[in-house]
Each structure stands twice: as C-alpha cells, then as structure tokens.
C-alpha cells in the first residue's frame, strides 16, 4: 500500500511498486485524462508533473512518485500557468482528435512554469517529445506563445 499525492489529494493505492504511474492513474484511481500512447516514453501522451517537472508516467514506477506532488491534466487548470495554457489551446483551436493534447498541455505548462518567455528553441526542446498524429504542431507552437505573452497570435472570429 502506498500513498500518492495526486492533484493535492493523498490517495492510498494497493499496487505493485513497479507499476507505472500511468496505469495507477488510469486503471486504479480512475483519472483517464492521462493517456496511453506507447509505453516506452516515445510519445508523451502520458505526461504528468512530478513536483512541477514534466515526466512520462508510462515509465515512472508508482513507488518513484511517493512523497512527491503529482499533477495531472485534471488538476493543471488549478494553477495559473495551467489555466493560461488551456485557454490558449482553446483560443488557437489546437485540438483535432484531442487524444495527445492532454499530454501536450502538461508539457507546455511545465515549460512555461520554468521559462515564462520561451524561445522557439525552448519550445522545440520541451515539446518535441510529444507526438501528435493529427499534426497540430503549428498551432501548439502558436498556443504556447499566446499563453506566454497573453497576446492573441491567431486572429479568430468566433460566433
């Protein structure tokens, strides 16, 4: 039995020590916003924050998260930077199928928490581990800039 601090709540779970955090979140705790994509840290769909750092939960043993603050997509909107990123994602209309976007948003939020004014190279470094098969990369870059600057980067006419 281990205790995980997920989105500010202590949660007791009875899981094997080596069980990846991803499956604890999805199949035991029932937080399904964190996605399974590859299982080998190649796609970033499973990205969560561990003490504010973006990590791939599909290869992180649950025991490694004990005593640390876990933030998932369900909790990121409670932070200022997370909220801004989500709003920018809506503003730029990033999502297509949407499956990878929760992981993208978690990576972007971690980037902006550490580098409030990221350069294109910073965005490359932080985001190139998150795959998107719908190919929303152009808008992801735009949304990160919008979240960073607060300036609308893409003209939108929304009814």
């Amino acid at each position, binding site marked *: 039995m281990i205790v995980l601090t997920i989105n500010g709540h202590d949660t007791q779970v009875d*899981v*094997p020590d080596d*069980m990846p955090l991803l*499956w604890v979140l*999805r*199949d*035991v705790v*029932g*937080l*399904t*916003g*964190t*996605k*399974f*994509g*590859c*299982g*080998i840290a*190649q*796609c970033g*769909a499973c990205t969560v924050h561990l003490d504010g750092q973006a990590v791939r939960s599909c290869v992180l043993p649950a025991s490694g998260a004990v005593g640390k603050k876990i933030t*998932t*997509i*369900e909790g990121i*909107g409670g932070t200022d930077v997370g909220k801004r990123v*989500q709003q920018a*994602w*809506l503003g730029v*209309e*990033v*999502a*297509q*199928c*949407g*499956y*990878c*976007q*929760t992981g993208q*948003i978690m990576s972007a939020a971690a980037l902006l928490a550490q580098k409030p004014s990221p350069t294109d190279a910073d*965005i*490359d*470094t932080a*985001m*190139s*581990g*998150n*795959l*998107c*098969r*719908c*190919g*929303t*990369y*152009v*808008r992801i*870059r735009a949304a990160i800039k919008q979240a960073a600057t607060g300036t609308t980067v893409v003209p*939108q*006419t*929304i*009814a």
Partner: protein
Amino acid sequence: MNLRVPPSPHDVDLQSPSRRELIKRGGLVVAFMWLGGAGRVWGLPDNARLDPSHPAFAPNAFVRIGNDGSIQLVMPTVEMGQGSYTGQATLLAEELDVGLDQITVEHAPPNRKLYANPLLGDQATGGSTTIRFCWTSLRNAGAAARYMLVAAAAQRWKVDAAQCTVARGVVTHAPTNRTLRYAELADAASKVTMPDKVSPKDPKDFQLIGKPLRRVDTPAKVDGTLPFGIDIRVPGMKVATVRACPTFGGKLASVDDTRARAIPGVLKVVKTDNAVAVIGEHFWAAKQGLEALDITWERGPNASFSTGQLFKDLAEASEHGKPILGREVGHVDNVKGKVVSATYQLPLLAHATMEPINTTVHVRPDSCEIWVGTQVPARCVDVAAKVTGLPPESITVHNQYLGGGFGRRLFEDSVEQAVAIAKQVDFPVKIVWTREEDIAQDRYRPAYYDRISATLDDNGKPIAWTDRTTGASVLATFAPGAMGKNGLDGDLVECSAELPYAIPNMRVDWVRHDMPAGLAVGWWRGVGPTHNVYVVESFVDELAHAAGKDPLAYRRDLLGDNPRARAVLELAAQKAGWGQGQLPPRHGRGVALAAPFGSYLCVVMDVEVTPQGEVIMKRAVAVVDCGWVVNPNTVEAQIQGGMVFGWSAALYSGITLKNGAVEQRNFNDYRVLRLNETPEIEVHIVPSTESPGGIGETGTVMAMPALTNAIFAATGVRIRTLPIDRHALVQDQNALKAVLSDATPADAASGDAAATARRLA
C-alpha cells in the same frame, strides 16, 4: 476509396416524382425520408439515445427539436479530429437560425438504413466525404424544420408566416411584437404538413457558414474530461491485452501460461484461434502476464514472406500481369518524341493513431454491449453477431470519440477479436492493444510499384503518357460490390486517370497484385490520391527537368482550360515567392498541384538538405479551393495536419516484413514527425461558390510530392522510393566525417537533446 460508384441520393431533386417512389421503398434515401409525408414515422432505435417519452418534433432522421428546448443532431458520421461535428452542426444551425451552442451533437447509432453515407455505400466515415455528403441534406433538414416551426407560430398567431423572423431559435412577429421559442412550438410543428419543397438560404444570407467558428468538441479535449474509447470504465470491468500471431495468416499452436497466472492481478488467460489475451485487474497486470506467456505459433504459409519478396513480386506482376484499364485517351502507341520513364515504389504504411486500438465488450447470454470508437458502427454489429451468434438487435454499440482514425478504424477486426475474447468470460472486459500490437497488427496501406512514362514533343510537352500501377485492392475486400465491371478498383487510379493537365494521349492501368492471404490491407489517409499524386507530381517534375523548364511554369503551360487549378497554382506561386530571390546552396523549392477529393490544391515547399543528408523543412505554402467553405478554421487545421501526416510518411514511415511479420515495433522505429521538425505552414483559401470538396485528406496527398520535389531542387536527387533514404542525400563522405567532430561535449552536458540533434543534422 472509390467515391464514384454509388449514386448520391442528395442529387435527387426535391421535386422529382421518382422521389416518392424511392421513399416508399426506403433504402438509402435517408436524408429525404421526411419528404414522403411520413415525417413523424421515425423508427429510430432506442439506442439512438433520443428520449422516447418526449413528444417531440423530428423532421428527419438527423434532427430532433424537443419541447424542452433541446435541439439534437444525431450525426451520421463520427468525430475523429477532422471537425465533422462542428461542420455538420453549422449546416443545421445555419438553416434553423439557431446558434451553434444551442445544438447538442451525438454519434449516430449503428443503423445503416438510416445513416449510410451514400458516397461510401455504408455507415462509414471516410474518403473526405462528410461535408460533401451532408452539404445539401443537412441544410434541407434545417430549412424544413424551420419552415414547420415558423408555420406553427404563424398558425397560432393567425398571421402570415412570411412576416415572421427567427433568431437563436426564437420566432418573432414584429408587427404585433410577439415571440415564441422553438421549444414552445415543437409539438405544434410536428402536426404541420411537411413542405413539398424547401429552399435553403441564399448563400449571401449565411450567418454561420464560412465563418471560423470554434469547434464544438474542444473544451473537453483540453481538460481531460472527454472520454475516448480507451477511457471507458463500466462496473465490474477488467482489462486485457492481447498478442496475435505476428506472422500473418498464422495460428496459435499452444501456450504455457503457468508463469503468467502467477503474476498478482492476472485473472485469466483466454485463447482465440490466432491470439492469446491476458485479463487482469488492470492493464499493467495484463501486460506483465502477456510478457510471461510462453507461446508457440503455427506460423503458416507466410513464414518466409518479406517485403523484399513483395517488391520482386510486384515488379514481376507489373511486367507480366494482366492490366485492367483505368482510362484511355487517344492512342499512346507510335507517338514520336523524347521518352522519359521512371519507376516509383511506395511502402506498406501503418496508421499509428495516437489512441491505440481498444474495445470494451460485455457479452451476456442474451445480449452484447460494445464501447468503441469506430468509423463503421454497423459493421461492428455484424461481426459481434457473427462471433456471439446473437441476433443483431441484441447487440448495442456505444460509439465513442476516436483518438485518430486515418482509416484504421474503418476496419472491425479488433472488435471481432475483442468479442471473441469477451464471450469467454462473464464480466465486461476492456481489450487494449499495446503500441507494439497496434503496429504489428494493422490493416496496412498497400505497397505500390508504379511504372510511368511520357513522350515529349519538341517543346518538352508530353504528347503521350502511360502510367501503370501495381498493387493490392482494398476495395475488393472492403466493399466488393463497388468494384468496377472490368474488375477495376477505382481507388488505384484515382488522381492518375484524371489529371489537371491536358495530355492528348493517355493510358492509365492497374495490375492487381493482392497480398498473400492473411496479410490484410486497408484505407490510409488520402487513399488512392496519396499514392497517385506522389507519383504523378514527381514525374511531372521529372518532365519539367527533362524539358529544361521551370517546374511551376511547366505545370502552368500544361493546364489547358482548368481555371480552378490555374487559380491555386498562381496564388501559391505568388504567396511563396516562386522564382524570386536566390536560394542558398542545398536549399530548394518544390511544387505540387492536384485535384483530390473534389478540391484543388497547390503546395510550394522550401527545404534545406544538410551535407549529411538530413532534410530540414523550412516553409510550406498551401493554397486550396475546396468549394464552399463551411469552416475556414477547420480547413486550415486539416491542411496543416494532413501535411504533417504526409511528411511523416515520406520522411520516416515504412512497414517492412521479415519472416511474414512486421519488423517495426513502436514510435522508436516507426517514426513520425515531431514538433521541432515541422515547418511554418501557411494555408490560403481561394473563395469559391462551387459545391464543397473534401478536405480531411488533401494535405496528406500534397505533402509528399511537394517535399520530394523540393529535395530534388536542393540536391538534384530524385526520390522515387519512399520513405526517403537519407543516404542518397549525403553530399559526400567527408560530410559524414565532419559531423562527428562537430559534436561538442557541451551539448551532451547541457542535456539539450534537440539542440544536439539539430547540430548533428
């Protein structure tokens, strides 16, 4: 897929006398069932999730306006990222005079009688058909509903309906300053006689169509609350993962599950004829269990098959097989001139949707319930009925949002497998494939071997053109009834039989060479056009080079009377700055022009190829004329994303077979494009009042030839085999030596992998 085969019922004139006959017979005339005067005879199945206790007004199969203020649109197509929900809701909202936010959208339940897509001949989402399919039908539906609601208001007020106006679902009679909401009118409207004819709005009055409206499905996609199929959790559910025989056509011989069953959380090991599944308390237990199985496969007849063999077989078939004519114009024989010929090879491709394949199934003695994101819900019912022996009416499919489709979810093989597993247990089970299984058990885009040739006149113009493609037919198994009389699968010659160019003598044919039994092929984003436009547009580039002409000017000269193609070409040239400025060494600009899925596109790309052979995409300019644009935001997104999908395939993706099994495993060796590799993409839309063309696949179609033509411009190397072989693009051996000495320890220390990669590149 071939979109020309089934006639489209929405072409039936609303006033045609034959229409009523069609309605009496029922069948596929879904959108117009209401015109038979039987508009309130619904027959929507209970699982349509339309509350049957509500007396409500429902003017046709797609729309329901409730007396509680609800406006439901039961979508005939599924949402997999392409924006179909938003586009369809927009068409309805426009004619109903309601806001997009007032409409609730739902997946249609499996019912091919009601929801078959006439362009596909089945209840399916694919072929970039959604807007083309419902452009007329949904607007007519909305206009009819509006007519009846306004008529109900006018009757109540005893006024002329023509004096009434509608905004946001509120009918107003200005002269007497009275208003009624649709909710208050729905019951009365259901008793109004159905109009014989409705008139959708004059486009100049459009309020919503053509505006970049927000997608209706986005908010739940940024906070993690939108459930995809893989997120389904039902009471008592367990989780399984599965391994099927890696050799196609092979079977399960035996399995020793002693070690697997000893793993905590493993509940059961279940066999089918060609696969083993481990069911656990959670995915991790199931996966640990799967890896602990000792499986013996009976590898079957394909045990020595390889892609090397496949391409030898394709080449042999191309030379000696029996061609099926796709199109012939004039006479290609005995045309004198300079002959240019080339051979192109395209690989098998996997879809690798971000959401791995999954299905949740609960089989009970008298029923079967399925939760899945599928492009073909009715086919899922068919396979579940086959596997369980239950009648189709006992099978319920709860369709879910799709974490990417791209054609993969047009196939119900995984649902069939899931039901076969679930019927062996008495609890609901969610079967989730690993990424490795997802790549190893796909329905692959077929490989193609194409020989193409042209004869040029003294001015370098092609006066004869032959194009022979050789490869497997997807349609032959997907919809055999849609195959042409002469055995032609139109998909194989789509966008090669009809070119935007005027060429006096043409012969385009296909040698059918199917994959060995057990190795299934499938639709893949862009289908026939993705394959053919790459070959045709690469070859046109070759001809321009052979003629010593600028590739864009060469295309312009070949266009003939084709104003829409000409317009996109000219605008792309202007926006991209074609012919302006001098590009640095090993930089190149390429162009591709085509008319896939009823739309016209021209893409111009700038690339740099490093001395080490790495391709850096700098910029892409896409110009599209897709007829009436329902939502320019969606059009832009689909072109951007579609091109990324195509570049992924051109640069990295390729499925190879060894010993009858797929060699690639995961995103490490089935690579796809990443953010740091994606160039700036501009999308320009040419205003048009033509009928809407498809959009979801067009970017993918254009991406590959635009890229490889730019690489040719940068290096002089013509790419005739995909994926692109970097070795062919290396400037010289010294370049490869230099790159190693350039890598400084500082990069490694900083941990900046992307910077290191860029430097190495």
